[in-house]
Protein backbone atom coordinates (compact mmCIF):
# COMPACT_ATOMS: atom_id res chain seq x y z
CA UNK A 1 0.00 0.00 0.00
CA UNK A 2 2.73 2.43 0.97
CA UNK A 3 4.75 1.41 -2.00
CA UNK A 4 1.84 2.02 -4.29
CA UNK A 5 1.46 5.45 -2.75
CA UNK A 6 5.16 6.20 -3.30
CA UNK A 7 4.87 5.01 -6.87
CA UNK A 8 2.02 7.38 -7.60
CA UNK A 9 3.71 10.18 -5.69
CA UNK A 10 6.79 9.79 -7.80
CA UNK A 11 4.76 9.80 -11.00
CA UNK A 12 2.82 12.87 -9.91
CA UNK A 13 6.00 14.77 -9.10
CA UNK A 14 7.56 13.86 -12.43
CA UNK A 15 4.40 14.92 -14.23
CA UNK A 16 4.39 18.24 -12.43
CA UNK A 17 8.01 18.94 -13.30
CA UNK A 18 7.37 17.95 -16.91
CA UNK A 19 4.45 20.33 -17.15
CA UNK A 20 6.49 23.20 -15.72
CA UNK A 21 9.36 22.52 -18.09
CA UNK A 22 7.31 21.75 -21.17
CA UNK A 23 4.58 24.36 -20.86
CA UNK A 24 6.53 27.31 -22.31
CA UNK A 25 7.78 25.13 -25.14
CA UNK A 26 4.31 23.84 -25.93
CA UNK A 27 2.98 27.38 -25.76
CA UNK A 28 5.63 28.51 -28.23
CA UNK A 29 4.87 25.71 -30.69
CA UNK A 30 1.16 26.43 -30.56
CA UNK A 31 1.56 30.17 -30.88
CA UNK A 32 3.78 29.74 -33.92
CA UNK A 33 0.78 28.36 -35.78
CA UNK A 34 -1.75 30.95 -34.59
CA UNK A 35 -3.06 34.06 -36.24
CA UNK A 36 -2.19 37.32 -34.48
CA UNK A 37 -5.67 37.64 -33.01
CA UNK A 38 -5.42 34.20 -31.36
CA UNK A 39 -1.94 34.75 -29.99
CA UNK A 40 -2.97 35.94 -26.56
CA UNK A 41 -5.59 33.30 -25.89
CA UNK A 42 -4.72 30.04 -24.19
CA UNK A 43 -7.41 28.19 -26.05
CA UNK A 44 -6.47 25.14 -28.07
CA UNK A 45 -9.39 25.86 -30.37
CA UNK A 46 -7.86 27.86 -33.22
CA UNK A 47 -7.36 27.57 -36.93
CA UNK A 48 -3.69 26.64 -37.56
CA UNK A 49 -1.76 28.59 -40.18
CA UNK A 50 1.72 28.58 -41.69
CA UNK A 51 1.48 32.29 -42.43
CA UNK A 52 3.84 33.24 -39.57
CA UNK A 53 6.69 31.23 -41.08
CA UNK A 54 6.15 32.88 -44.45
CA UNK A 55 6.15 36.29 -42.78
CA UNK A 56 9.37 35.86 -40.81
CA UNK A 57 11.29 34.73 -43.89
CA UNK A 58 10.04 37.69 -45.95
CA UNK A 59 10.98 41.36 -45.81
CA UNK A 60 11.44 43.13 -43.43
CA UNK A 61 12.32 40.29 -41.02
CA UNK A 62 14.46 38.19 -43.36
CA UNK A 63 14.93 35.34 -40.91
CA UNK A 64 16.73 33.41 -43.66
CA UNK A 65 19.80 35.64 -43.29
CA UNK A 66 19.88 35.01 -39.56
CA UNK A 67 19.52 31.26 -40.04
CA UNK A 68 22.47 31.40 -42.41
CA UNK A 69 24.52 33.45 -39.92
CA UNK A 70 23.71 31.08 -37.08
CA UNK A 71 24.50 28.00 -39.14
CA UNK A 72 27.80 29.40 -40.37
CA UNK A 73 28.93 30.69 -36.98
CA UNK A 74 28.01 27.49 -35.13
CA UNK A 75 29.41 25.15 -37.79
CA UNK A 76 32.72 26.94 -38.21
CA UNK A 77 33.10 27.22 -34.44
CA UNK A 78 32.60 23.46 -34.08
CA UNK A 79 34.94 22.69 -36.97
CA UNK A 80 37.73 24.70 -35.38
CA UNK A 81 37.07 24.09 -31.68
CA UNK A 82 36.61 20.32 -31.72
CA UNK A 83 39.82 19.27 -33.53
CA UNK A 84 41.90 21.71 -31.47
CA UNK A 85 40.19 20.70 -28.25
CA UNK A 86 40.62 17.00 -29.06
CA UNK A 87 44.38 17.36 -29.44
CA UNK A 88 44.61 19.53 -26.32
CA UNK A 89 42.46 17.08 -24.37
CA UNK A 90 44.63 14.18 -25.49
CA UNK A 91 47.76 15.98 -24.36
CA UNK A 92 46.26 16.89 -21.01
CA UNK A 93 45.10 13.33 -20.56
CA UNK A 94 48.29 11.51 -21.56
CA UNK A 95 51.40 13.63 -21.18
CA UNK A 96 52.80 14.12 -17.70
CA UNK A 97 54.24 17.56 -18.28
CA UNK A 98 55.29 19.84 -15.43
CA UNK A 99 52.62 22.43 -14.66
CA UNK A 100 49.99 20.39 -16.48
CA UNK A 101 47.42 20.64 -13.70
CA UNK A 102 47.90 24.36 -13.30
CA UNK A 103 47.56 24.94 -17.02
CA UNK A 104 44.41 22.89 -17.13
CA UNK A 105 42.99 24.85 -14.22
CA UNK A 106 43.90 28.07 -15.99
CA UNK A 107 41.98 27.00 -19.08
CA UNK A 108 38.97 25.94 -17.06
CA UNK A 109 39.07 29.11 -14.98
CA UNK A 110 38.19 31.16 -18.05
CA UNK A 111 34.77 29.58 -17.69
CA UNK A 112 34.25 31.24 -14.34
CA UNK A 113 34.45 34.76 -15.76
CA UNK A 114 30.95 36.19 -16.26
CA UNK A 115 30.34 37.04 -19.90
CA UNK A 116 29.15 40.57 -19.11
CA UNK A 117 32.57 41.35 -17.68
CA UNK A 118 34.41 40.68 -20.92
CA UNK A 119 31.82 41.72 -23.46
CA UNK A 120 32.90 45.36 -23.42
CA UNK A 121 36.63 44.65 -23.94
CA UNK A 122 35.64 42.37 -26.81
CA UNK A 123 33.48 45.12 -28.26
CA UNK A 124 36.32 47.64 -28.12
CA UNK A 125 38.77 45.15 -29.57
CA UNK A 126 36.59 44.27 -32.53
CA UNK A 127 35.76 47.93 -33.13
CA UNK A 128 39.48 48.69 -33.34
CA UNK A 129 39.94 45.79 -35.73
CA UNK A 130 36.94 46.87 -37.77
CA UNK A 131 35.29 43.48 -37.23
CA UNK A 132 32.08 44.61 -35.57
CA UNK A 133 28.96 43.06 -37.05
CA UNK A 134 30.92 40.26 -38.79
CA UNK A 135 30.62 36.49 -38.47
CA UNK A 136 34.37 36.33 -37.93
CA UNK A 137 34.03 38.27 -34.68
CA UNK A 138 31.27 35.94 -33.48
CA UNK A 139 33.29 32.86 -34.38
CA UNK A 140 36.33 34.17 -32.49
CA UNK A 141 34.26 34.99 -29.42
CA UNK A 142 32.44 31.68 -29.48
CA UNK A 143 35.71 29.82 -29.82
CA UNK A 144 36.96 31.59 -26.71
CA UNK A 145 33.86 30.58 -24.81
CA UNK A 146 33.44 27.06 -26.05
CA UNK A 147 36.93 25.63 -26.50
CA UNK A 148 37.87 25.34 -22.80
CA UNK A 149 34.60 23.63 -22.13
CA UNK A 150 35.03 21.19 -24.99
CA UNK A 151 38.62 20.44 -23.92
CA UNK A 152 37.35 19.58 -20.48
CA UNK A 153 34.58 17.42 -21.87
CA UNK A 154 36.68 15.48 -24.36
CA UNK A 155 39.42 15.00 -21.77
CA UNK A 156 36.85 13.18 -19.67
CA UNK A 157 36.13 10.81 -22.53
CA UNK A 158 39.80 10.21 -23.32
CA UNK A 159 40.66 9.67 -19.64
CA UNK A 160 38.16 6.82 -19.67
CA UNK A 161 39.93 5.00 -22.51
CA UNK A 162 42.55 2.58 -21.20
CA UNK A 163 46.05 3.31 -22.46
CA UNK A 164 46.76 -0.34 -23.23
CA UNK A 165 45.52 -0.19 -26.79
CA UNK A 166 47.54 2.94 -27.48
CA UNK A 167 50.71 1.42 -26.10
CA UNK A 168 50.07 -1.73 -28.09
CA UNK A 169 49.80 0.37 -31.24
CA UNK A 170 53.03 2.19 -30.47
CA UNK A 171 54.80 -1.12 -30.09
CA UNK A 172 53.17 -2.41 -33.25
CA UNK A 173 54.94 0.44 -35.01
CA UNK A 174 52.69 3.50 -34.87
CA UNK A 175 53.90 7.04 -34.25
CA UNK A 176 52.05 9.17 -31.71
CA UNK A 177 50.00 10.92 -34.39
CA UNK A 178 49.18 7.63 -36.03
CA UNK A 179 48.03 6.30 -32.65
CA UNK A 180 45.72 9.27 -32.27
CA UNK A 181 44.31 8.79 -35.75
CA UNK A 182 43.95 5.01 -35.74
CA UNK A 183 43.20 4.22 -32.11
CA UNK A 184 42.21 7.20 -29.98
CA UNK A 185 39.88 8.99 -32.38
CA UNK A 186 37.81 5.94 -33.29
CA UNK A 187 37.54 4.94 -29.65
CA UNK A 188 36.70 8.46 -28.49
CA UNK A 189 34.39 9.09 -31.45
CA UNK A 190 31.09 8.90 -29.52
CA UNK A 191 32.48 11.30 -26.94
CA UNK A 192 33.84 13.67 -29.53
CA UNK A 193 30.55 13.62 -31.42
CA UNK A 194 28.67 14.37 -28.23
CA UNK A 195 31.05 17.22 -27.45
CA UNK A 196 30.65 18.58 -30.99
CA UNK A 197 26.91 18.70 -30.63
CA UNK A 198 27.22 20.32 -27.24
CA UNK A 199 29.55 22.86 -28.74
CA UNK A 200 27.11 23.49 -31.58
CA UNK A 201 24.21 23.99 -29.18
CA UNK A 202 26.16 26.39 -26.98
CA UNK A 203 27.17 28.48 -29.98
CA UNK A 204 23.74 28.29 -31.57
CA UNK A 205 22.10 29.62 -28.41
CA UNK A 206 24.73 32.24 -27.61
CA UNK A 207 22.95 35.54 -27.09
CA UNK A 208 24.85 38.20 -25.17
CA UNK A 209 27.91 38.55 -27.39
CA UNK A 210 25.87 38.31 -30.56
CA UNK A 211 23.59 41.05 -29.25
CA UNK A 212 26.44 43.45 -28.50
CA UNK A 213 28.73 42.64 -31.42
CA UNK A 214 26.21 42.55 -34.28
CA UNK A 215 23.85 45.10 -35.71
CA UNK A 216 22.56 44.12 -39.15
CA UNK A 217 24.78 41.82 -41.26
CA UNK A 218 25.85 39.18 -38.78
CA UNK A 219 22.75 38.97 -36.58
CA UNK A 220 22.09 35.43 -35.35
CA UNK A 221 18.75 33.78 -34.59
CA UNK A 222 18.57 34.41 -30.82
CA UNK A 223 19.31 38.09 -31.37
CA UNK A 224 16.87 38.15 -34.25
CA UNK A 225 14.10 37.24 -31.81
CA UNK A 226 14.52 40.59 -30.12
CA UNK A 227 13.54 42.42 -33.28
CA UNK A 228 10.01 41.11 -32.93
CA UNK A 229 9.57 43.48 -30.00
CA UNK A 230 8.50 46.52 -32.00
CA UNK A 231 6.95 49.90 -31.27
CA UNK A 232 3.69 48.30 -32.39
CA UNK A 233 4.02 45.82 -29.53
CA UNK A 234 5.45 42.33 -29.18
CA UNK A 235 4.67 40.13 -32.17
CA UNK A 236 4.35 36.90 -30.25
CA UNK A 237 3.21 34.72 -33.12
CA UNK A 238 6.24 35.73 -35.23
CA UNK A 239 8.59 35.39 -32.31
CA UNK A 240 7.25 31.91 -31.71
CA UNK A 241 7.68 30.92 -35.33
CA UNK A 242 11.31 32.08 -35.16
CA UNK A 243 11.63 30.31 -31.80
CA UNK A 244 10.56 27.06 -33.44
CA UNK A 245 13.26 27.57 -36.07
CA UNK A 246 15.84 27.87 -33.30
CA UNK A 247 14.57 25.00 -31.22
CA UNK A 248 13.94 22.25 -33.74
CA UNK A 249 17.59 21.69 -34.79
CA UNK A 250 18.56 21.59 -31.12
CA UNK A 251 15.90 18.98 -30.42
CA UNK A 252 17.16 16.82 -33.22
CA UNK A 253 20.72 17.11 -31.99
CA UNK A 254 19.76 16.33 -28.43
CA UNK A 255 18.17 13.14 -29.69
CA UNK A 256 21.35 12.28 -31.58
CA UNK A 257 23.49 12.81 -28.49
CA UNK A 258 21.25 10.58 -26.48
CA UNK A 259 21.69 7.75 -28.92
CA UNK A 260 25.47 7.99 -29.03
CA UNK A 261 25.97 8.89 -25.43
CA UNK A 262 25.13 5.46 -24.17
CA UNK A 263 27.12 3.49 -26.68
CA UNK A 264 30.21 2.10 -25.01
CA UNK A 265 32.94 1.96 -27.59
CA UNK A 266 35.60 0.77 -25.18
CA UNK A 267 33.88 -2.53 -24.49
CA UNK A 268 36.21 -5.40 -25.24
CA UNK A 269 39.46 -3.48 -25.13
CA UNK A 270 40.57 -5.14 -21.95
CA UNK A 271 40.00 -8.38 -20.12
Amino acid at each position, binding site marked *: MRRLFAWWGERALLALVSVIVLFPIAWMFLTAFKRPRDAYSLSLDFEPTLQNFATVFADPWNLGDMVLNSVIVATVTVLIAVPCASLAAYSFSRFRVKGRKFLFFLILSTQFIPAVVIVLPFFLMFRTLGLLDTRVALIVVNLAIVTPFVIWMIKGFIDAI*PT*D*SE*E*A*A*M*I*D*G*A*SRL*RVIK*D*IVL*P*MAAPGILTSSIFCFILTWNEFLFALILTRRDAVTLPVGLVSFRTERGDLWELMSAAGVMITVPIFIMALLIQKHFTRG*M*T*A*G*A*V*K
Partner: protein
Amino acid sequence: MAEIRLVDIEKKYGNFLAVPKQSLTIVDGEFLVLLGPSGCGKTTTMRMIAGLEDITSGDILIGGDRVNDKPPKDRDIAMVFQNYGLYPHMTVRQNIEYPLKLRGMAKADRAARVQETAEKVELDALLDRRPSELSGGQRQRVALARAIVRKPRIFLMDEPLSNLDAKLRVTMRAELKHLHHELGVTTVYVTHDQMEAMTLASRVAVMREGRIVQLDTPKRIYSEPADLFVAGFIGSPSMNLIEGAIRGGVFTAQGVSLPVTVSDRDDVVLGVRPEDLEIIQRDEAPIQGRLYALELTGDSTLVTLRTGKASVCARGPADFEAEINAPCHFAPKPGVRIHLFDRTSGQRIDGDAAQGTAA
Protein backbone atom coordinates in the same frame (compact mmCIF):
# COMPACT_ATOMS: atom_id res chain seq x y z
CA MET B 1 66.40 -12.15 -32.69
CA ALA B 2 68.70 -10.20 -30.49
CA GLU B 3 70.44 -10.00 -27.19
CA ILE B 4 69.10 -7.49 -24.67
CA ARG B 5 71.44 -5.79 -22.26
CA LEU B 6 70.31 -3.68 -19.37
CA VAL B 7 73.23 -1.74 -17.95
CA ASP B 8 72.81 -0.07 -14.55
CA ILE B 9 69.22 0.82 -15.30
CA GLU B 10 67.25 2.64 -12.68
CA LYS B 11 63.67 3.87 -12.54
CA LYS B 12 62.24 6.45 -10.19
CA TYR B 13 58.67 7.67 -10.06
CA GLY B 14 59.20 11.03 -8.41
CA ASN B 15 60.97 10.09 -5.20
CA PHE B 16 59.82 6.49 -5.30
CA LEU B 17 62.53 4.09 -6.41
CA ALA B 18 60.69 1.41 -8.40
CA VAL B 19 63.75 -0.29 -9.88
CA PRO B 20 67.14 0.37 -8.26
CA LYS B 21 70.30 0.32 -10.31
CA GLN B 22 70.93 -3.10 -11.81
CA SER B 23 72.17 -4.91 -14.85
CA LEU B 24 70.88 -7.90 -16.74
CA THR B 25 71.83 -9.58 -19.98
CA ILE B 26 69.22 -11.57 -21.82
CA VAL B 27 70.88 -13.95 -24.20
CA ASP B 28 69.86 -14.19 -27.85
CA GLY B 29 67.03 -16.68 -28.23
CA GLU B 30 66.44 -17.36 -24.57
CA PHE B 31 63.16 -17.37 -22.69
CA LEU B 32 63.80 -15.22 -19.64
CA VAL B 33 61.13 -15.01 -16.97
CA LEU B 34 60.93 -12.12 -14.52
CA LEU B 35 59.34 -13.63 -11.46
CA GLY B 36 58.31 -11.89 -8.28
CA PRO B 37 55.39 -10.85 -6.13
CA SER B 38 53.02 -8.13 -7.24
CA GLY B 39 54.52 -4.63 -7.12
CA CYS B 40 58.15 -5.71 -7.28
CA GLY B 41 58.89 -3.86 -10.52
CA LYS B 42 58.48 -6.56 -13.16
CA THR B 43 56.15 -4.55 -15.35
CA THR B 44 58.26 -1.45 -14.93
CA THR B 45 61.36 -3.32 -16.06
CA MET B 46 59.57 -4.72 -19.08
CA ARG B 47 58.09 -1.36 -20.03
CA MET B 48 61.55 0.16 -19.95
CA ILE B 49 62.74 -2.47 -22.40
CA ALA B 50 59.72 -1.71 -24.59
CA GLY B 51 60.33 2.01 -24.46
CA LEU B 52 56.95 2.75 -22.92
CA GLU B 53 58.67 4.10 -19.83
CA ASP B 54 61.68 6.42 -19.73
CA ILE B 55 64.62 5.13 -17.76
CA THR B 56 65.92 7.43 -15.05
CA SER B 57 69.51 6.38 -15.65
CA GLY B 58 71.46 3.60 -17.30
CA ASP B 59 71.47 2.12 -20.78
CA ILE B 60 69.41 -0.40 -22.69
CA LEU B 61 71.02 -2.18 -25.60
CA ILE B 62 69.14 -4.35 -28.05
CA GLY B 63 71.31 -6.33 -30.43
CA GLY B 64 74.20 -4.08 -29.46
CA ASP B 65 72.43 -0.78 -30.26
CA ARG B 66 71.71 1.70 -27.51
CA VAL B 67 67.96 2.24 -27.68
CA ASN B 68 67.42 4.60 -24.73
CA ASP B 69 66.08 7.36 -26.93
CA LYS B 70 64.31 5.23 -29.50
CA PRO B 71 60.52 5.21 -29.43
CA PRO B 72 58.85 1.81 -29.06
CA LYS B 73 58.07 1.59 -32.76
CA ASP B 74 61.76 1.63 -33.67
CA ARG B 75 62.82 -1.11 -31.28
CA ASP B 76 61.41 -3.97 -33.34
CA ILE B 77 59.66 -5.66 -30.46
CA ALA B 78 56.26 -7.22 -30.00
CA MET B 79 54.43 -7.24 -26.71
CA VAL B 80 51.51 -9.07 -25.18
CA PHE B 81 49.87 -6.96 -22.50
CA GLN B 82 48.35 -8.21 -19.30
CA ASN B 83 44.99 -6.80 -20.38
CA TYR B 84 45.69 -7.68 -24.02
CA GLY B 85 45.44 -4.09 -25.29
CA LEU B 86 43.39 -5.11 -28.30
CA TYR B 87 41.85 -2.56 -30.65
CA PRO B 88 38.15 -2.80 -29.76
CA HIS B 89 36.94 -0.98 -32.87
CA MET B 90 38.71 -3.37 -35.22
CA THR B 91 37.87 -6.94 -36.12
CA VAL B 92 40.18 -9.77 -35.14
CA ARG B 93 41.55 -9.71 -38.69
CA GLN B 94 42.26 -5.99 -38.54
CA ASN B 95 43.81 -6.36 -35.11
CA ILE B 96 46.28 -8.95 -36.34
CA GLU B 97 46.89 -7.10 -39.59
CA TYR B 98 47.61 -3.72 -37.99
CA PRO B 99 51.35 -4.22 -37.25
CA LEU B 100 51.88 -5.34 -40.86
CA LYS B 101 49.93 -2.39 -42.19
CA LEU B 102 52.04 -0.01 -40.14
CA ARG B 103 55.16 -1.47 -41.65
CA GLY B 104 53.87 -0.97 -45.14
CA MET B 105 53.44 -4.57 -46.22
CA ALA B 106 51.45 -5.07 -49.43
CA LYS B 107 47.81 -5.94 -49.01
CA ALA B 108 47.90 -9.41 -50.55
CA ASP B 109 50.92 -10.42 -48.48
CA ARG B 110 49.20 -9.12 -45.38
CA ALA B 111 46.12 -11.23 -45.95
CA ALA B 112 48.22 -14.35 -46.39
CA ARG B 113 50.25 -13.67 -43.27
CA VAL B 114 47.17 -12.95 -41.17
CA GLN B 115 45.60 -16.19 -42.34
CA GLU B 116 48.71 -18.20 -41.60
CA THR B 117 49.11 -16.68 -38.14
CA ALA B 118 45.44 -17.06 -37.28
CA GLU B 119 45.65 -20.74 -38.13
CA LYS B 120 48.66 -21.12 -35.89
CA VAL B 121 46.69 -19.91 -32.86
CA GLU B 122 43.41 -21.42 -34.08
CA LEU B 123 41.61 -18.15 -34.64
CA ASP B 124 40.83 -18.55 -38.33
CA ALA B 125 37.13 -19.09 -37.66
CA LEU B 126 36.84 -15.87 -35.67
CA LEU B 127 38.58 -13.40 -37.96
CA ASP B 128 35.54 -11.22 -38.57
CA ARG B 129 34.49 -10.82 -34.97
CA ARG B 130 35.24 -7.92 -32.70
CA PRO B 131 37.22 -8.39 -29.48
CA SER B 132 34.08 -7.76 -27.45
CA GLU B 133 32.55 -10.88 -28.98
CA LEU B 134 35.36 -13.15 -27.83
CA SER B 135 36.05 -15.08 -24.65
CA GLY B 136 39.09 -14.31 -22.50
CA GLY B 137 41.12 -17.12 -23.98
CA GLN B 138 40.27 -16.08 -27.52
CA ARG B 139 41.23 -12.48 -26.82
CA GLN B 140 44.46 -13.70 -25.39
CA ARG B 141 45.14 -15.58 -28.60
CA VAL B 142 44.39 -12.47 -30.65
CA ALA B 143 46.96 -10.58 -28.60
CA LEU B 144 49.40 -13.39 -29.19
CA ALA B 145 48.68 -13.54 -32.92
CA ARG B 146 49.19 -9.81 -33.22
CA ALA B 147 52.56 -10.19 -31.55
CA ILE B 148 53.81 -13.06 -33.71
CA VAL B 149 52.36 -11.97 -37.06
CA ARG B 150 55.44 -9.88 -37.61
CA LYS B 151 58.77 -11.50 -36.95
CA PRO B 152 60.09 -9.19 -34.25
CA ARG B 153 63.52 -9.38 -32.68
CA ILE B 154 62.06 -9.60 -29.19
CA PHE B 155 58.87 -10.75 -27.52
CA LEU B 156 57.74 -9.14 -24.30
CA MET B 157 54.88 -10.72 -22.40
CA ASP B 158 53.40 -9.21 -19.28
CA GLU B 159 51.45 -11.83 -17.34
CA PRO B 160 49.66 -12.86 -20.52
CA LEU B 161 47.92 -15.81 -18.89
CA SER B 162 46.81 -14.21 -15.66
CA ASN B 163 43.27 -13.51 -16.83
CA LEU B 164 42.59 -17.05 -17.95
CA ASP B 165 41.05 -19.83 -15.94
CA ALA B 166 43.35 -22.51 -14.56
CA LYS B 167 42.76 -25.10 -17.24
CA LEU B 168 43.20 -22.75 -20.16
CA ARG B 169 46.31 -21.38 -18.52
CA VAL B 170 47.95 -24.78 -18.65
CA THR B 171 47.03 -25.27 -22.31
CA MET B 172 48.22 -21.82 -23.31
CA ARG B 173 51.42 -22.33 -21.38
CA ALA B 174 52.23 -25.33 -23.50
CA GLU B 175 51.37 -23.36 -26.63
CA LEU B 176 53.70 -20.55 -25.63
CA LYS B 177 56.47 -22.97 -24.96
CA HIS B 178 55.97 -24.62 -28.32
CA LEU B 179 55.84 -21.25 -30.05
CA HIS B 180 59.12 -20.19 -28.53
CA HIS B 181 60.69 -23.43 -29.61
CA GLU B 182 59.38 -22.92 -33.13
CA LEU B 183 60.25 -19.23 -33.56
CA GLY B 184 63.31 -19.03 -31.34
CA VAL B 185 62.77 -15.35 -30.63
CA THR B 186 64.33 -13.80 -27.52
CA THR B 187 61.48 -13.60 -25.03
CA VAL B 188 61.05 -11.73 -21.79
CA TYR B 189 58.10 -12.99 -19.82
CA VAL B 190 56.69 -11.46 -16.65
CA THR B 191 54.75 -13.47 -14.11
CA HIS B 192 54.09 -13.78 -10.41
CA ASP B 193 53.21 -17.45 -10.87
CA GLN B 194 56.21 -19.59 -10.02
CA MET B 195 54.72 -22.57 -11.81
CA GLU B 196 54.62 -20.63 -15.07
CA ALA B 197 58.15 -19.45 -14.49
CA MET B 198 59.50 -22.92 -13.80
CA THR B 199 57.81 -24.53 -16.79
CA LEU B 200 58.53 -21.86 -19.39
CA ALA B 201 61.87 -20.33 -18.59
CA SER B 202 65.34 -20.95 -19.91
CA ARG B 203 66.37 -18.71 -17.04
CA VAL B 204 64.41 -17.11 -14.23
CA ALA B 205 65.18 -13.74 -12.68
CA VAL B 206 63.55 -13.65 -9.26
CA MET B 207 62.78 -10.06 -8.30
CA ARG B 208 62.09 -8.45 -4.98
CA GLU B 209 61.47 -4.76 -4.39
CA GLY B 210 62.83 -3.88 -7.79
CA ARG B 211 66.00 -5.90 -7.39
CA ILE B 212 66.91 -9.15 -9.08
CA VAL B 213 67.82 -11.43 -6.19
CA GLN B 214 68.65 -14.50 -8.23
CA LEU B 215 69.15 -15.16 -11.90
CA ASP B 216 69.48 -18.79 -12.79
CA THR B 217 67.99 -21.79 -14.54
CA PRO B 218 64.68 -22.99 -13.08
CA LYS B 219 66.42 -26.11 -11.86
CA ARG B 220 69.03 -24.20 -9.87
CA ILE B 221 66.53 -21.66 -8.57
CA TYR B 222 64.66 -24.61 -7.17
CA SER B 223 67.58 -26.66 -5.92
CA GLU B 224 69.82 -23.85 -4.78
CA PRO B 225 67.85 -20.74 -3.80
CA ALA B 226 70.20 -17.83 -3.14
CA ASP B 227 68.36 -16.54 -0.11
CA LEU B 228 65.39 -16.99 2.16
CA PHE B 229 63.11 -14.97 -0.11
CA VAL B 230 63.72 -17.17 -3.13
CA ALA B 231 63.57 -20.28 -0.97
CA GLY B 232 60.16 -19.31 0.33
CA PHE B 233 58.85 -18.06 -3.00
CA ILE B 234 59.68 -21.04 -5.19
CA GLY B 235 57.95 -24.35 -4.72
CA SER B 236 54.44 -25.34 -3.79
CA PRO B 237 53.88 -26.00 -0.98
CA SER B 238 56.76 -23.76 -0.09
CA MET B 239 59.99 -24.88 1.54
CA ASN B 240 59.93 -25.53 5.29
CA LEU B 241 62.01 -22.89 7.01
CA ILE B 242 63.03 -23.62 10.59
CA GLU B 243 64.93 -21.21 12.82
CA GLY B 244 67.64 -22.63 15.03
CA ALA B 245 71.37 -22.86 15.66
CA ILE B 246 74.25 -25.17 14.75
CA ARG B 247 75.92 -26.89 17.70
CA GLY B 248 78.66 -29.47 17.27
CA GLY B 249 77.87 -30.02 13.59
CA VAL B 250 74.16 -30.53 14.26
CA PHE B 251 71.38 -28.14 13.39
CA THR B 252 69.21 -27.84 16.49
CA ALA B 253 65.77 -26.40 17.07
CA GLN B 254 62.89 -27.54 19.21
CA GLY B 255 62.07 -31.06 18.05
CA VAL B 256 64.67 -30.88 15.28
CA SER B 257 68.23 -32.14 15.18
CA LEU B 258 69.89 -32.65 11.81
CA PRO B 259 73.61 -33.17 11.22
CA VAL B 260 75.06 -30.56 8.83
CA THR B 261 78.52 -29.78 7.46
CA VAL B 262 78.64 -26.13 8.49
CA SER B 263 80.66 -24.87 11.44
CA ASP B 264 78.80 -23.88 14.61
CA ARG B 265 76.87 -20.62 14.62
CA ASP B 266 73.66 -19.01 15.89
CA ASP B 267 70.80 -17.49 13.96
CA VAL B 268 70.52 -20.08 11.26
CA VAL B 269 67.45 -20.96 9.21
CA LEU B 270 67.26 -24.48 7.90
CA GLY B 271 65.25 -25.11 4.75
CA VAL B 272 63.95 -28.41 3.51
CA ARG B 273 61.32 -29.01 0.85
CA PRO B 274 58.19 -31.03 1.73
CA GLU B 275 58.90 -33.42 -1.13
CA ASP B 276 62.36 -34.10 0.34
CA LEU B 277 60.94 -35.32 3.64
CA GLU B 278 59.53 -38.71 4.38
CA ILE B 279 57.38 -39.89 7.22
CA ILE B 280 59.02 -42.49 9.40
CA GLN B 281 57.86 -44.44 12.40
CA ARG B 282 60.99 -44.46 14.58
CA ASP B 283 61.26 -42.36 17.74
CA GLU B 284 64.79 -40.97 17.24
CA ALA B 285 63.78 -39.19 13.99
CA PRO B 286 65.50 -35.87 13.12
CA ILE B 287 62.18 -34.01 13.07
CA GLN B 288 59.61 -34.80 15.72
CA GLY B 289 56.33 -33.23 16.67
CA ARG B 290 52.63 -33.76 16.73
CA LEU B 291 50.47 -34.18 13.70
CA TYR B 292 48.76 -30.89 12.94
CA ALA B 293 46.97 -31.31 9.60
CA LEU B 294 46.47 -33.69 6.71
CA GLU B 295 45.68 -32.40 3.23
CA LEU B 296 44.99 -34.81 0.43
CA THR B 297 46.07 -33.36 -2.92
CA GLY B 298 45.15 -36.34 -5.06
CA ASP B 299 48.47 -37.97 -5.82
CA SER B 300 49.86 -37.36 -2.34
CA THR B 301 49.02 -36.17 1.17
CA LEU B 302 50.53 -33.07 2.71
CA VAL B 303 51.34 -33.92 6.28
CA THR B 304 52.01 -31.03 8.66
CA LEU B 305 53.46 -31.49 12.10
CA ARG B 306 54.04 -28.87 14.78
CA THR B 307 56.99 -28.64 17.05
CA GLY B 308 57.36 -25.58 19.25
CA LYS B 309 56.61 -22.55 17.11
CA ALA B 310 57.50 -24.24 13.86
CA SER B 311 55.29 -26.17 11.44
CA VAL B 312 56.92 -28.63 9.12
CA CYS B 313 55.21 -30.05 6.09
CA ALA B 314 56.07 -33.28 4.29
CA ARG B 315 54.65 -34.78 1.15
CA GLY B 316 53.57 -38.29 2.05
CA PRO B 317 51.81 -41.08 0.20
CA ALA B 318 48.19 -40.52 -0.78
CA ASP B 319 47.02 -43.30 1.50
CA PHE B 320 48.75 -41.95 4.61
CA GLU B 321 46.45 -41.81 7.61
CA ALA B 322 46.94 -40.88 11.26
CA GLU B 323 45.17 -39.22 14.18
CA ILE B 324 45.53 -35.47 14.58
CA ASN B 325 47.81 -34.68 17.56
CA ALA B 326 49.42 -38.11 17.38
CA PRO B 327 53.25 -38.10 17.58
CA CYS B 328 54.74 -37.74 14.11
CA HIS B 329 58.27 -38.14 12.74
CA PHE B 330 59.93 -36.87 9.57
CA ALA B 331 63.35 -37.49 8.13
CA PRO B 332 65.02 -36.14 4.99
CA LYS B 333 65.08 -38.68 2.20
CA PRO B 334 68.56 -40.03 1.50
CA GLY B 335 70.69 -37.76 -0.68
CA VAL B 336 68.38 -34.73 -0.72
CA ARG B 337 69.52 -31.19 -0.29
CA ILE B 338 69.24 -29.40 3.05
CA HIS B 339 69.50 -25.62 2.78
CA LEU B 340 70.99 -23.30 5.39
CA PHE B 341 70.51 -19.54 5.50
CA ASP B 342 71.74 -16.73 7.70
CA ARG B 343 68.71 -15.53 9.64
CA THR B 344 69.62 -11.83 9.63
CA SER B 345 70.91 -11.36 6.10
CA GLY B 346 68.74 -14.07 4.57
CA GLN B 347 71.72 -15.20 2.49
CA ARG B 348 72.47 -18.81 1.80
CA ILE B 349 75.28 -20.07 4.00
CA ASP B 350 77.98 -21.39 1.73
CA GLY B 351 80.46 -24.15 2.41
CA ASP B 352 77.62 -26.31 1.13
CA ALA B 353 74.76 -27.56 3.22
CA ALA B 354 74.32 -31.07 4.51
CA GLN B 355 73.28 -34.05 2.56
CA GLY B 356 70.32 -35.78 4.05
CA THR B 357 71.48 -38.72 6.12
CA ALA B 358 69.82 -42.01 5.76
CA ALA B 359 67.93 -41.97 9.00
